[in-house]
């Protein structure tokens, strides 16, 4: 496997694509590119730009998305065009696919359909890993994953990211070949000889009494311990609903809800997106009825330790294999909490994998990765506020 990486911040978008792709091609050192991952800021999300990139790359498969932040070895950038070219050997197989027009009712079936498309041609090939990039699907994320796992297999490693926009809550874009998509999910399935390791952590700790979700419907928690769900936050922060609504973003990212998962070291986090008039809490990702939940708290150090643990776990999974590149899906909320020190987390990653190991990533509004405990049977969950590290090893 050979890797070429390029990044540009030129204001003229076509020139930026040219520059970044040029750098990546040089990095491949005359090896033919098999696949391209493209991550850009929203400004670059244009069909013409994708066509240009597709033509420049000789029409190899392209997969990627827009995001409010691009992570590279050189830093985290709010503006730019990043491309990672991968030259794979003949023993590695992959297939890319996408599914459009996902909504609450069709999310599960869309997941199944995407899985089927990805599985095309994999009949006698050992499947290894699937990576997906979905729109900022706040309510449909869990169903989509369930649908995908229905056909890919419940314990099949599925890692993914919901791209974040620049907090304008408008649109995110997915790139598949020369198609610019929105409200969709695109993905890749690797098989054959393909080595990878992953680690996912958040660094939040439970605080206070454990509660029980006594009433919920997918991502809407109606009751906790028989009372309106919002009361939990009202009690803890001594604020009424109106005050909470005003500070919801800050409270939500600093003190998310944590769902207790037996056997797992960390709780599964859920951000609160909004508070309904009846006191229900709308979360980013499903919270099943009967879930044991607690309020979560973190510190800068605990989050950094979590990032370090995720990196080390990914590295350890590869068991000493040379790491060819690292893909990072880092929650936008984490970076927002780090503020001016957002580069610290990137520094931790580079320290573990080495500063010269190619690194590409995006800021996310939701991460998908499997749980590792025996109880969870490797099932992938929709997560919030996590850092997802995927290390790809030499073939």
């Amino acid at each position, binding site marked *: 496997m050979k890797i070429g990486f390029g990044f540009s911040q030129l204001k003229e978008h076509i020139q930026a694509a040219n520059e970044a792709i040029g750098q990546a091609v040089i990095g491949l050192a005359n090896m033919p590119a098999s696949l391209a991952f493209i991550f850009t800021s929203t400004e670059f999300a244009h069909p013409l730009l994708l066509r240009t990139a597709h033509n420049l790359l000789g029409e190899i498969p392209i997969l990627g998305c827009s995001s409010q932040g691009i992570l590279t070895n050189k830093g985290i950038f*709010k503006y730019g065009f990043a491309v990672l070219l991968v030259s794979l050997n003949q023993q590695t197989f992959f297939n890319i696919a996408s599914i459009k027009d996902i909504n609450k009712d069709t999310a599960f079936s869309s997941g199944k359909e995407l899985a089927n498309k990805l599985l095309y041609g994999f009949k006698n090939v050992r499947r290894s890993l699937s990576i997906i990039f979905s729109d900022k699907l706040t309510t449909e994320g869990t169903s989509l994953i369930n649908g995908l796992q229905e056909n890919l297999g419940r314990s099949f490693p599925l890692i993914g990211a919901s791209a974040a926009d*620049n*907090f*304008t*809550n*408008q649109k995110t874009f997915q790139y598949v070949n020369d198609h610019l998509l929105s409200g969709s999910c695109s993905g890749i399935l690797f098989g054959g000889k393909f080595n990878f390791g992953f680690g996912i952590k958040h660094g939040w700790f439970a*605080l*206070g*009494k454990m509660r029980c979700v006594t009433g919920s419907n997918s991502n809407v928690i109606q009751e906790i311990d028989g009372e309106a769900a919002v009361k939990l936050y009202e*009690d*803890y*922060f*001594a604020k009424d609903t109106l005050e909470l609504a*005003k500070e919801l*973003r*800050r*409270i939500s990212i*600093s*003190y998310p809800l944590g769902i207790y998962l037996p056997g797992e070291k960390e709780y599964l986090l859920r951000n609160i997106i909004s508070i309904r008039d009846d006191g229900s809490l709308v979360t980013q990702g499903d919270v099943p009825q009967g879930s044991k939940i607690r*309020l979560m*708290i973190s510190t800068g150090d605990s989050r950094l330790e979590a990032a370090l643990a995720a990196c080390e776990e990914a590295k350890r999974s590869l068991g000493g294999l040379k790491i060819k590149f690292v893909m990072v899906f880092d929650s936008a909320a984490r970076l927002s909490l780090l*503020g*001016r020190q957002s580069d610290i987390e990137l520094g931790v990653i580079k320290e573990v994998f080495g500063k010269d190991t190619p690194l590409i990533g995006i800021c996310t509004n939701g991460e998908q990765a499997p749980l590792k405990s025996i109880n969870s049977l490797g099932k992938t969950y929709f997560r919030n506020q996590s850092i997802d590290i995927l290390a790809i090893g030499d073939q």
Partner: protein
Amino acid sequence: MLSFIFISICLIVASLGISLLSKIQRLKEAGDKIKTLNLSLEEMDEQAKLIMRTDMELNKAQEELDKKISGLDTLQKLSQEINTTLEEKQIFKKIDNKYLEELGFERSLAFLWKSLEREFRPYLRLGYNDEEAAKIETALNANKDYFLDLIQNGISASSEFMPEGFLAKDKIRRMFLVHSFIICPVLTQEGDRGFIFVGTQNTEASITKGDQEFISILANQISQTLDNARLFEKIWKSQQELEIKVEERTRQLTQALEEVKTISKRKSDFISSVSHELRTPLTSIKGYAAILLTGKLGTMPDEIKNRLEKINRHSDELVHMVNDLLDISRIESGKVDMKIESLDLKTVIEKVADLLSEQLKTKNISFGSNIVDSCQKIMADRGQIERVFINLVGNALKFTPQNGKININANCANKIIQIDVVDSGFGIPQEAQEHIFEEFYRVDNTINQQVKGTGLGLTLVKHIVEAHQGKIWVKSKLGEGSTFSFTLKAGE
């Protein structure tokens, strides 16, 4: 047997009762423990709430502090950028997207009020396309009075803090296509005033007082830089006008100088030709007078002889005057060939002293010189420089009373020698000092009334010194003597 059975049953019942009582006791104890645990749990939950609230306050403070540090850093960078230009339009171009993003905004506009056109004109546009910007400009000018009031009163507005009487918050949001915003007036001392607008579409962002303070500082910075730019332009324009005036005056002066030179040349030519014309008959007059005085043409009565002697003496004076005039004229027109060479100053002075020794002796005037060792050599034309010394020492001799003193001092610096001819004479009145080197000027005093002179001696001296690229000046105080100083290049 029955009693045994009864006793046994009683014992069993009693032991069961004891056991039951003991279990009840244990259950009670367990219940108490559970209650205690629950109480502890509730207490811990209350503590957790306290921790959460404290943590939130700390986080808020940290966030605000981070925002302030980052904002201050950005403002400092922006100030440096803005201060690099003194061109009004360039000031706004220095405000870049990256600075705006660092302050937490992605859209910005700046408008200045054009009082002549009676409308707001855009000077900055970030994060808007042409169509959006045009729509905003139209909407703004349709509501210009509200914004003019804001500028007039020097008040800021934001999506969090709206002043009374200003447009509704939602109207501003719709007009500028943002969710949160700040508007700060740009209050310049002179010229067009306006406002800067920053905004974000981020629905989760909220404007703090700190944000408003930052944008207010930025607006002030822009105002000051605009004032500086305008002041600079004003000064620059004045300077341009001044330069034009100076150029015009210089041209006029050059023209006048040329005219003066022409007139002066004509005068010199005239004096030169007149002097030449005078010299020929004068020579004849002097010659004939001399012949007559020899008596070769017969003896003459004493009265005629006296008259002839007067003719001869006056002819000498006239010849002297004509010669001086001719010399001045020649030097002015550059017709004199100067043979500049390194001369020993002491030798020159000694020669002059020797020439004037009789007169010095007659008036019992002490004559001395004080020449620093390093000033022994001068670069000069021997003949001309001797005339300078003869004139200056001769004048000193003339105006110094009996038993007086005349000294010649020489000092040098930077290869220039300054020679001072110092006398203990009557001195020269202050008002006469500035005219003393002018042609035919004679100080009005008793000595001059008694002793005849042409009034050309010092003019000639000045011309000779200047022909040596030197300068000459006088310092004098009535009754305390005079010092005539002149400079020459040092010899090798």
